């Protein structure tokens, strides 16, 4: 019997059958979905992402705006590293608010907590700026507003090493005295507001900068090398020397106490508008800024992503535009990737129906693409999907905070990708 079994190849056949009939179980099927994923967050109504922060312990903070029952509230989510929701809170408010930014507080009595920045609608057209100090569980420890102007709108908050804060934004208060003589109205000015460690506005620290018709401060940076040295970035259509047409350009300034009276570095193509969306400082001390370029008339279909890389003192290394099959594209966010690369997040617009898709690119300082396919795109033609923030994890994995349109309801999404942009 044994000889027969051996001679007929029975042993091999038996092994083959055992292999063939092995059952797929939870221990034999690798749960790859846990490492790279898309996870959705929300409640009743619509929720849109605004910003994202990854804590040192791997916790992920998502900030957004929840719209329901004709009101809007700042929406705070904390997840673990695999996107499981741990905390979800809509902050109470008497006003409708739009979330803007979340940053970790690095010094002062609030150190270790988080600064949440939002813009509260105080009438139909004007905003006040609201800062909440929240702990990791989303409990609001302190809340204070900036409402000195008729209108103020914040883009980003920067916790400072002295325990204070800098807010970058814009005001739309009309300022005829500062009006650029070549412009009909000074409708938007860059706005920088400094708070001290007691969360009080530093007198003289509220700075309305420039004479622009269209401009905004995007973010203030505190340079690592010199704690007294600050930088801010933004865009403005102030006329430059030898410039006859007031087109918007990126602006970069370094300062210590007075952000207005300092040398300005510009970047932009003559006779085109470049509106900065985000800027970042790499660990290597180089900068990358991204914004949306359009023709001087801001024609919808002329919108492109404009990027510029700069050295630490804002000397330009390279600049370029990203073309996407002749579809308009709007820059959203940038973040360093490693020591010398950057991730650029943007939204491309489907001209047929106006919906958007999310686009992510990885580039180096020379603005060369790091990925063979240049970019990854998320979205479907019928849905309006937008990216809001991008971040690189210490191991090179990528996180995107996005707003995804799911069967006509918007939900906040967390997308986690490999360093090559793939799931």
């Amino acid at each position, binding site marked *: 019997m044994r000889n027969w079994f051996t001679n007929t190849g029975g042993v091999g056949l038996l092994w083959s059958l055992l292999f063939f009939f092995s059952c*797929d179980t939870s221990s034999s099927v690798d749960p790859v*979905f846990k490492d790279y*994923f898309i*996870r959705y967050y929300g409640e009743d109504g619509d929720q849109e992402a605004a910003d994202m922060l990854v804590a040192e312990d791997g916790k992920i903070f998502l900030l957004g705006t929840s719209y329901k029952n004709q009101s809007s509230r700042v929406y705070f989510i904390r997840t673990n590293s695999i996107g499981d929701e741990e905390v979800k809170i809509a902050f109470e408010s008497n006003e409708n608010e739009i979330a803007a930014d979340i940053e970790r507080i690095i010094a002062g009595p609030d150190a270790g907590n988080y600064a949440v920045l939002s813009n509260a609608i105080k009438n139909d057209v004007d905003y006040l700026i609201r800062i909440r100090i929240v702990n990791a569980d989303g409990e609001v420890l302190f809340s204070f507003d900036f409402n000195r102007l008729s209108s103020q709108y914040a883009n980003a908050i920067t916790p400072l090493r002295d325990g204070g804060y800098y807010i970058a934004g814009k005001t739309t208060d009309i300022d005829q005295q500062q009006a650029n003589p070549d412009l009909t109205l000074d409708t938007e000015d860059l706005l920088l507001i400094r708070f001290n460690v007691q969360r009080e506005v530093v007198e003289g620290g509220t700075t309305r900068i420039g004479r622009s018709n269209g401009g905004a401060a995007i973010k203030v940076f505190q340079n690592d090398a010199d704690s007294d040295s600050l930088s801010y970035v933004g865009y403005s259509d102030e006329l430059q020397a030898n410039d006859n047409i007031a087109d918007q350009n990126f602006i970069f300034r370094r300062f210590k106490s007075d952000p207005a009276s300092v040398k300005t570095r510009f970047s932009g193509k003559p006779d085109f508008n470049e509106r900065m969306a985000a800027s970042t400082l790499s660990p290597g001390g180089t900068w990358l800024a991204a914004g949306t370029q359009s023709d001087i008339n801001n024609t919808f279909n002329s919108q492109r992503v404009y990027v510029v890389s700069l050295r630490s003192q804002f000397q330009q290394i390279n600049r370029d535009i990203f073309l996407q099959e002749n579809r308009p594209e709007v820059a959203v966010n940038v973040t360093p990737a490693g020591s010398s690369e950057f991730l650029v997040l943007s939204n491309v617009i489907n001209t047929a129906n106006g919906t958007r898709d999310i686009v992510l690119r990885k580039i180096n300082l020379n603005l060369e693409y790091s990925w063979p396919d240049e970019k990854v795109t998320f979205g479907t033609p019928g849905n309006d999907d937008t990216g809001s923030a991008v971040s690189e994890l210490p191991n090179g994995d990528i996180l995107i905070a996005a707003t995804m349109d799911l069967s006509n309801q918007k939900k906040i999404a967390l997308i986690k990708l490999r360093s090559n942009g793939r799931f």
Partner: protein
Amino acid sequence: MIFSKRIVLLIFFSAVSRLLYAQKSTDDCEETLNLAATEFNSGRFYNIAKILQPCLQNGFSREQRQRANLLLTQVNLLQDDPVGAENSYLDLLRANPEFVADTARDPIDVVYLSRKFTADPVISAFVRLGGNTSPVRVIHQINPSGEINITNNYSLQPGLLLGGGFDINIRSELALSVELNYATTAYTKKQVKFNLDEKIFTDRQHWLTLPIAVKYTDTKGIVRPYGYAGFALQWLISDNGQIDWTKNDINPIEGQPPISNFIPSPSIDFMEFRNKFNYSVFVGGGVRYKIGLDFLFADLRYSFGMTNLVIPTTTYSSAGPMVEYGHTDDYFRLDNLAISVGYVKPFYKPRKLKTARTRTILKGLSKGA
């Protein structure tokens, strides 16, 4: 018109006369058979073959043919003509493949002879038609919502089953069964998330399956139970899903029902997310009901899906159902419970065995005593 009527009448009378002739022929052959039996009982063996020959060529019913060939078998045995006896017995089995010589009824030498032969079908063909339902067994739950404690409620949906196959008989009661089936399967998966929103995913598959089983069948009686176990290769032909969202938001007016908005999706092709080739193991059983030499059967089968239907690397992508509808499939195996009815046509093959099965004769004799 008149011509047509005449044709119909001609066919009618022709058919009636043929039936009458057949009945007459059978009656005549019964007399012939009785005459042959009388001759046999009188010990006059030599004329029996001649007497039966006309009716054997044309006229005996199946039952009469069986009796005639049994008589001839006995005659040949008594005349010491083993070859003739074997031929007659083979003719007997051709007349009634299920004939089994019995020690209590038949002469012992016929019983011994019968053990050298069998008419067991080598192959039986069958067709089946039925319904099924497919329980989902989750390998890994994948929750596209960041919310934890989201439950996936799977529910059963009906499907169809149509197929056929062959039983290759190893022994009279043991067969290797090979089938080719077409089946539709379906299930639904319901999730409640984002507070009260309800997402229902209905997944429908079309399959071709090749089940191979070892089947044990009772070989006696009108009702014959059987059971089997085996494995099936499964080819997924198509997989289409529909994702229906019902967005339920709490009504700001207290006491009012939630504000609902139902948004169905079109049918979505899920083939790019599925393993096309799968396999399962199954057990089943049923009963066969004898009709003449054939059978009707009712069958119940449970298949255990062995493979993950989902291609793990396709759970997330930059487009598709995940991005458009927030849908991900769990990693899952698909079981199947099928109930079917069918028809079995055994292809009997009377033949001489290489080894006679004579061991059981003494047992039969002792029982008879």
